[in-house]
């Protein structure tokens, strides 16, 4: 062993634990507005993630316990669970989580080695493979025509059974972003669309409160110095700027910047997805570049693309660029500043 012989009492598990804690307010908001289904999804994803992680560690001859305890698999599971519709069928959740952990994480060597954000890989696989199930989001309980209890949610997720006489349309709807896109396509004026019952004050009803909860969690992470300001600020600012520009140019067909900040995965993306240290750049300039690119791509994909939201694809596309971003944004070393 060589020096230093002292070290700070911090650990990877501690960091992951704090990130998980920071997500709790948003999960609570989710359960409050959309019912208990999200809790089932999170549990199922967590169990799958831990099992697959343990299995892969065993197969790779790595110590199982220390790596299970690091919390990274749980984090992936939670992020994925919060990105997909809460009442998706069980096999979809299991497939997505297993793909995220096994293929996009362990094939690359596990924690710290994966170039792509595992949760977003899981999401992309699911939305490409099961577009129907992936767009059946629960409507906010205040809007939906019917409510489902925990037992009924379980029945639907595992056995695909709804209570007698109930139609799936009674509890689900497209996301606010998706609705906006399809309705705009049908040439409805934007003011009329945004006054539909699924919309709230800024974004989607309920969804905007989740966004606020993610913001709160993110601020906690900033305060704890788990994440740095560059990624969230640059990401949100670039979404704000580009959506503002489009809104100014043509407000009849483009929702305003605050709508875009409060809708979809903007907030969870800014504070929890893009801030993943493993798959993001490490230099301050690189982080700004990375998040700005992700913001612009997110806006373009969610407004013009085929998919309801763009955060996942934007994250993956920017993940591809990370090694080069890192290489070309090295800060000058001591004594060699210009």
């Amino acid at each position, binding site marked *: 062993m*060589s020096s230093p012989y002292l070290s700070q009492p911090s650990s990877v598990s501690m960091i992951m634990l704090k990130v998980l804690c920071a997500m709790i307010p948003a999960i609570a908001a989710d359960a409050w507005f959309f019912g208990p289904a999200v809790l089932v999804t999170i549990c199922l994803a967590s169990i799958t993630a831990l099992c697959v992680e343990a299995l892969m560690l065993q197969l790779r001859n*790595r*110590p199982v316990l*220390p790596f299970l305890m690091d919390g990274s698999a749980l984090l992936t599971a939670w992020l994925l669970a919060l990105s997909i519709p809460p009442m998706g069928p069980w096999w979809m959740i299991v497939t997505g989580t297993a793909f995220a952990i096994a293929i996009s994480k362990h094939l690359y060597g596990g924690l710290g080695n994966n170039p792509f954000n595992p949760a977003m890989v899981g999401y992309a696989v699911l939305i490409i493979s099961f577009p129907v199930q992936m767009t059946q989001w629960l409507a906010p309980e205040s809007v939906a025509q019917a409510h489902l209890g925990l037992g009924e949610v379980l029945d639907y997720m595992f056995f695909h059974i709804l209570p007698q006489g109930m139609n799936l349309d009674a509890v689900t709807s497209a996301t606010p972003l998706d609705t906006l896109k399809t309705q705009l396509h049908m040439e409805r004026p934007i003011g009329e669309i945004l006054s539909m019952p699924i919309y709230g004050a800024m974004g989607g009803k309920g969804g905007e409160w989740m966004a606020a909860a993610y913001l709160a969690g993110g601020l906690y992470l900033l305060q704890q110095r788990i994440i740095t300001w560059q990624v969230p600020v640059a990401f949100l600012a670039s979404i704000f700027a580009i959506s503002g520009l489009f809104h100014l140019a043509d407000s009849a067909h483009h929702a305003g910047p605050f709508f875009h900040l409060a809708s979809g995965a903007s907030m969870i993306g800014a504070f929890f997805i893009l801030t993943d240290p493993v798959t993001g750049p490490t230099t301050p300039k690189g982080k700004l570049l990375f998040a700005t690119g992700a913001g612009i791509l997110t806006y373009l994909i969610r407004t013009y693309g085929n998919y309801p939201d763009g955060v996942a694809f934007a994250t993956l596309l920017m993940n591809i660029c990370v090694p080069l971003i890192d290489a070309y944004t090295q800060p000058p070393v001591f004594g060699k500043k210009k």
Partner: protein
Amino acid sequence: MLDAILVMSGLALFLGSLLGYASIRFHVQGNALVEKIDAILPQTQCAQCGFPGCRPYAEAIAEGRAEINQCPPGGEANIHKLADLLGVEFKSLNAKHGAEKPKSVAFIDENTCIGCTLCIQACPVDAISGAPKHMHTILSQECTGCELCIEPCPVDCISMVPVAVTVSNWKWKAPSYLQEAG
């Protein structure tokens, strides 16, 4: 039919003359690659690769007459460097040419040496000093450890001594936990 033949032959003629011009205009003198390969080789001049020295071996690699894994003194590290330079797959050292050994220098047992100068003639880097009928000495600073002097010695007074580790050439080890985690 005739058009087709005309068109194709016209095309061929045009491209042919273009290429002919290019090959004259951009003719390459010599091979800069040999220098780059030679710079990687350890210059032991031991001929274990089957060529009479490092430079001939470098030329052979550049011309594709030799594999990159024929140099035992350079070892795996050098094969990696050559593979990198040439953009080919790494191959482990060809055992036919010998095995990788810790760097050694030759040592002459001065009591046995008869001063025959045979080793001096064999040394590729003039690292042995001495005169006929006088005892010979290895200049250990210059010795490459090629072992070419051992064979000709009629009294077997030359042995290879591994280079000693001192404070000035001691190396830090890589942290050893890599195998367990990471």
